[in-house]
């Protein structure tokens, strides 16, 4: 049992010393992370569904909305609804699939700085959010033009740049929530369920509370990110509303994102 022998070094052939390779540039990681979002069947269809659902929503609007009432806002909200579900899913899976599919093993051995990979995923996520919203907006424009010409009325453009920018921001917040949950939970099913609790269950609870509690009805938006975000869709935010959005985002987004990231950087990848 005590046979501990120092390994012999005879027969060692030193390999010619090679130049140390250059560090991996961030742009390369960005490119790889972007590719990884499209290169599986599920990833591809998730991205394709952004366009498909926009088209379906626009067609449905043309069919179901009274021709005389057709405005761009109808299209924007019809197209926006599926986006607010799909985009956060894209963000969640960008992170959580590394764990669910165990690709993190390869990802983090090729790039041992996990923070760089996460940063790349965050940048790509925000980028995809913006592009998706622009695509959805453009599909809505086509829908509005086609729909009103079928109805024989003049197209009405009741959404300006400011409103559209607010809508993009609201969706980006949803995506960042997804990213945060993906990072914090590192599990696809867990993060998806958590997102739906956040997006579908909590708003109901909050408005029920606001119905009975005057204080909450008054001050809720400071603490309820859903509430503060929803107003981006249909009103021009006042200074106080922006402040509420910012404060709620600290609780719901920034702090959990920081804690989750810290835990992920130190976690064991198996």
């Amino acid at each position: 049992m005590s046979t501990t022998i120092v390994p012999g070094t005879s027969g060692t052939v030193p390999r010619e010393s090679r130049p140390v390779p250059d560090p991996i540039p961030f742009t390369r990681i960005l490119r790889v992370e972007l590719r990884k979002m499209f290169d599986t069947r599920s990833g591809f269809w998730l991205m394709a569904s952004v366009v498909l659902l926009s088209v379906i929503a626009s067609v449905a609007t043309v069919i179901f909305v009274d021709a005389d009432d057709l405005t761009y806002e109808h299209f924007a909200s019809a197209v926006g609804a599926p986006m607010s579900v799909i985009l956060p899913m894209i963000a969640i899976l960008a992170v959580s699939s590394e764990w669910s599919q165990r690709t993190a093993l390869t990802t983090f051995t090729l790039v041992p700085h996990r923070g760089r990979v996460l940063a790349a995923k965050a940048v790509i996520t925000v980028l995809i959010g913006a592009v998706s919203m622009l695509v959805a907006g453009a599909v809505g424009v086509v829908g509005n033009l086609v729909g009103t010409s079928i109805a024989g009325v003049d197209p009405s453009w009741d959404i300006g740049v400011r409103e559209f920018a607010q809508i993009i921001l609201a969706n980006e917040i949803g995506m960042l929530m997804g990213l945060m949950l993906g990072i914090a939970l590192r599990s696809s099913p867990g993060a998806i369920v958590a997102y739906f609790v956040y997006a579908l269950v909590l708003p109901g609870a909050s408005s029920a509370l606001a119905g009975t509690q005057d204080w909450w009805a008054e001050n809720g938006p400071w603490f309820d990110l859903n509430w503060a975000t929803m107003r981006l869709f249909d009103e021009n935010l006042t200074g106080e509303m922006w402040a509420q959005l910012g404060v709620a985002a600290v609780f719901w987004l920034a702090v959990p994102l920081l804690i989750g990231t810290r835990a992920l950087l130190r976690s064991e990848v198996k």
Partner: protein
Amino acid sequence: MITVESLSKSYGGQAAVDDVSFSAAPGRVTGFLGPNGAGKSTTMRVMVGLTPPTRGDVHVLGRRFQDLPDPGREVGVLLDASAQHAGRTGREILTIAALTMGLPRSRVDEMLQRVSLTPAEAGRRVRNYSLGMRQRLGIATALLGDPQVLILDEPANGLDPAGIRWMRDLLRGFADDGGTVLLSSHLLHEIEVIADDLVVIGNGRIVAQGTKQELLASAGTLVRAADGAALAVALQAAGLIARPTADGAVLADADLTSVGTAAFAAGIPLLELRAADGARLEEMFLSLTADTQRESVQHVTEGAAA
């Protein structure tokens, strides 16, 4: 070159790896041997920065793994061939790795050829791969960046005999070109045929290390008779150090002649008499395995007696 210095990793007070130190030299294949759960995989995950160590350091090519500027170009790693996105094709997995390392796409085809995956196989999704094909793909990923060091965890798992032969030749060639190879296995015979140096780990501790020749060197005499216990007693009576082995033979710390003479004097007919080849390592390894195995021999006997 891989250097592991006083590496420890514990989980909630339970030591998975306990003060492990060894090195893998360039130009040599180092076998990392131990039963399942001995701490091989944990040690290897620490090496490549996937698991933070409790104490100790690992240096690969003189740096901490995290400090390698483009690790794939210097160190090829295969820890778990099944840890791949089931929905990606084999070619896509190599392409992603090649993009990360900044290599041309042509390198992907070269590697596919090197590990004998046909274009049709490379175009299939990994979900439909056999374990052997996944191992080949994993080896291809590890070799992609033309590294100087290979770290492979149980790479022979799932390979057929021809595949094992192929991998043995590949790793031999890699080491002969001056590369460093560290590969783990829980099978002594698998590693015996390929490794130059051996590091044996059990219950998180190194129990032996050295060159294969040193560790497998003749360790006394192996002798066998119909009644092993009686033979051992007879040899001991003749003043030899002898003990029965698990399989009924007797291992004596003496040369062939004295063992044969002693047996003859005691009137015990021998069935086998030869120099023990690496019996020490084999036995040590078996006893290590027995310690960690759930169905230990003793357990079975107790069950039968009850």
